[in-house]
């Protein structure tokens, strides 16, 4: 390990792992965490322990101080894999369930023959069901590749692996069916491959549907504020995207404060950011309405001009304040990672965004339907003059409505910061899609926006695997154009004389 050459280090790891030396585990795990130090002068290797103490790797003796010339042994991917494999063998007997589980999984992946004895002894002792299953899988994987394993063992292994039914199982089976195996095993493997492929095909349909829902929820979230400012109020709000962007930057600022002052709160950063983003974007929305939009009612196309101007100003303002580059917004732990549902991977951030979107939708719908403010909003936008004569304070309602639409856009920004860039251009990338969704669903109809977003999302995700992302997107646009010919007022068109001139 003395050399800073990856191949040498790699070999060293292998040797240490099989050496049975009690120091093997601390050394290798130190390597993994980049706590293994190498001093080029004395050609000595040290382990920085987690508690800060330093020991000499060769002897295990404690050392007072690292020589100045010592530097961490660097890792690359190949090394990381070897380390994992080595640790896998070494940690199969760890007292911690999760460590054992991941160890078993990494053995399954590496199917390193050398670990077989450990796997078997671990399997015998194991009580936890999940770990037991993982160990059995690992053992099966090893057998599959063990050239001297008996045919019976191998067939059994094929069956075990087939039962997993996932991509990795498929990969293992495909790999062995190429090699020279007893005829029976090859046959069993072939049939297992067919059956796994069949079930995976169904799962891929389910997966597309889920991706579609998730894309739909993002579209819906981006569009829903627009469904208010544009759909309800009739303002062609080109600055909508910038409201989304402001929400995302609010998240950034919140996280920045948390990171520097209250790191413990990081997991709550989104919960804090959401209401703040609503307030920030909402307040700016109210400001815009009071200073600009209110002079433009009844002239919807001029709102296009003014809000376009506004969007330029807001973008540049953010660029001046935060710089032109992306800002980092992290995922809280509950928004990171994924879990497996059958054969598909569901990422937590997408799942939460879906839930969040639905919650926003339901609240908004209820608000418009059942509250006095909701009624007043609709009355004002349908006939401002008459609404005033009914005693409705139209200017207040206008400001609130625009503020609400903008605020919701801000909330959308919080969610979108979890999956996309936080940059001054963020808004631009959603504005066209948002208009598409609102118009496709039918202007002025929240349900239309909902169904529109999910339809486009799902259609997109079913087209993408077939046509590729670019042609898929083009196809969606063409479909929208054709669809509007069939339904010139969108999916959920308002019909009847109430809407016609």
């Amino acid at each position, binding site marked *: 390990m003395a050399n800073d050459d990856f191949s040498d280090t790699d070999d060293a790891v292998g040797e240490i792992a099989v050496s049975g030396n009690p120091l093997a585990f601390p050394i290798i795990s130190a390597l993994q965490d980049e706590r293994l130090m190498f001093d080029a002068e004395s050609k000595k290797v040290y382990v920085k322990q987690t508690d800060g103490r330093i020991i000499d790797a060769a002897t295990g003796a404690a050392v007072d101080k690292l020589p100045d010339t010592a530097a961490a042994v660097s890792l690359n991917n190949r090394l990381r894999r070897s380390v994992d494999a080595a640790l896998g063998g070494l940690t199969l007997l760890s007292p911690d369930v999760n460590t054992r589980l991941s160890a078993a999984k990494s053995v399954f992946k590496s199917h390193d023959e050398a670990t077989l004895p450990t796997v078997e002894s671990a399997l015998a002792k194991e009580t936890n069901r999940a770990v037991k299953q993982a160990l059995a899988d690992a053992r099966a994987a090893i057998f599959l590749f063990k050239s001297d394993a008996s045919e019976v063992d191998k067939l059994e292994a094929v069956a075990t692996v087939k039962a997993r039914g996932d991509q990795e199982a498929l990969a293992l089976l495909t790999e062995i069916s190429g090699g020279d195996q007893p005829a029976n095993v090859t046959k069993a493997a072939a049939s297992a491959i067919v059956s796994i492929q069949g079930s995976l095909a169904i799962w891929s349909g389910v997966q597309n549907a889920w991706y579609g829902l998730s894309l739909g929820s993002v579209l819906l979230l981006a569009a829903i504020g627009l469904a208010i400012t544009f759909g309800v109020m009739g303002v062609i709000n080109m600055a909508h995207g910038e409201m989304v962007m402001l929400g995302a930057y609010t998240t950034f600022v919140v996280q920045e404060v948390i990171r520097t002052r209250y790191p413990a709160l990081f997991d709550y950063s989104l919960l804090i950011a959401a209401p703040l983003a609503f307030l920030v974007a909402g307040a700016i929305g109210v400001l815009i309405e009071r200073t600009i939009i209110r002079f433009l009612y009844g002239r919807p196309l001029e709102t296009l001009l003014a809000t376009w101007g506004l969007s330029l100003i807001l973008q*540049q303002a953010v660029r001046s304040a935060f710089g032109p580059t992306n800002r980092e917004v992290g995922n809280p732990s509950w928004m990171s990672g994924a879990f497996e549902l059958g054969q598909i991977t569901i990422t937590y951030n997408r799942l939460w965004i879906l839930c969040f979107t639905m919650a926003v939708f339901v609240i908004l719908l209820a608000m418009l339907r059942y509250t006095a403010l909701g009624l007043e909003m609709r009355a004002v936008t349908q006939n401002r003059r008459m609404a005033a004569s009914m005693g409705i304070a139209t200017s207040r309602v206008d400001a609130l409505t625009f503020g609400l639409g903008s605020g919701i856009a801000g909330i959308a920004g919080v969610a979108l910061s979890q999956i996309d860039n936080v940059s001054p251009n963020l808004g631009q990338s959603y504005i066209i899609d948002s208009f598409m969704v609102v*118009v496709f669903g039918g202007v002025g109809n929240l349900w239309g926006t909902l169904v529109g977003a999910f339809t486009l999302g799902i259609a997109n995700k079913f087209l993408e695997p077939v046509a590729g992302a670019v042609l898929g997107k*083009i196809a969606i646009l063409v479909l929208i154009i054709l669809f509007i010919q069939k339904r010139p007022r969108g999916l959920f068109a308002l019909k009847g004389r109430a809407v016609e001139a």
Partner: protein
Amino acid sequence: MMPHLLTRSLDRGASIFLLVVAACGILIPLSNLLLPAGSALQVPTYLVALWGKYVCYAILALSIDLIWGYCGILSLGHGAFFALGGYAMGMYLMRQIGTRGVYGNPLLPDFMVFLNYAKLPWYWHGFDMFWFAALMVLVVPGLLAFGFGWLAFRSRVTGVYLSIITQAMTYALLLAFFRNDFGFGGNNGLTDFKDILGFNVQAEGTRAALFALSCLSLIIAFLICRAVVTSKLGKVLIAIRDAESRTRFLGYRVESYKLFVFTLSACMAGVAGALYVPQVGIINPSEFAPGNSIEAVIWVAVGGRGTLVGAALGAVVVNYAKTFFTSGLLAPYWLFMLGALFVLVTLLLPKGIIGTFNSWWDQLSTKTPNAESAAREDGVTEPKMAE
């Protein structure tokens, strides 16, 4: 064109406009070519190219004003027709390069060589002939507009729905043209032009001629628009804009009218694009970007919708502002300036520059009450009472 169409179309504003454009079209090239470089009165080549670009934008703006200002069709995808015209011209210019390309391939444009095209795609044939390319400049945008309009107007797609599908159209084209496989050079577009009709595109004389030609086209486009809007057809268009279904009950075939102006307007946009390409030297898919089309609509709004002269003026003013703000000390703030310009124009000059000027002029000169029209002037209708 029938003479009465022409004579009717010339009121004072129109005549002044035509005179100014004609004067520019003649004087600027002459000054550029004849006066010695560096003399105070000489217009530098740099400005000729710049103003040539503005003039092309002005033609595009006119074409938008024709359908939006007079017929209420808000196209947020007109840049597509402009770009298609530009591509048609670009294809001609590419073919003119001939063996002077970097790979010296007599038939294939450079990008096709390095992307391993075995032979020229069928849709590139014929573009080596100017007359064919010139025809395509009209036909391609015209056909697309005709097909698109035929579908949309027949199914009575109106208002924002129409606007958004025009946007979808240009967006789809944008994505398609980005692809290398589409055969138009992908993101890098068509560039490095050498000759047009045997003249070097970079030569000062060619530039001056192109500028004059652009002015001439602007004049012709303007005359066509004026002829259309001052004819009875113009009144029908306005009727359609204000109360489409009422027009139908009077026995007008609304979809034919819309189709006519839409196609006409697309052809004009195509011509604008075709003149634009040799002057700026590149055509690339970003011309299809929805933002470009929206911006073009904004020029019209700034200048004054439904005034024609205003549209052309708006295009020049906004683009000049852009040129001006993007260099020098103001450069870091130019988006603030441009944004503020748009906001202020909407608030202070609700009818645009020319529109406001016109009503101010009317009030001064006639003193007749020009009652605030309650008409919905927009393609987007606020929900209205049933009858």
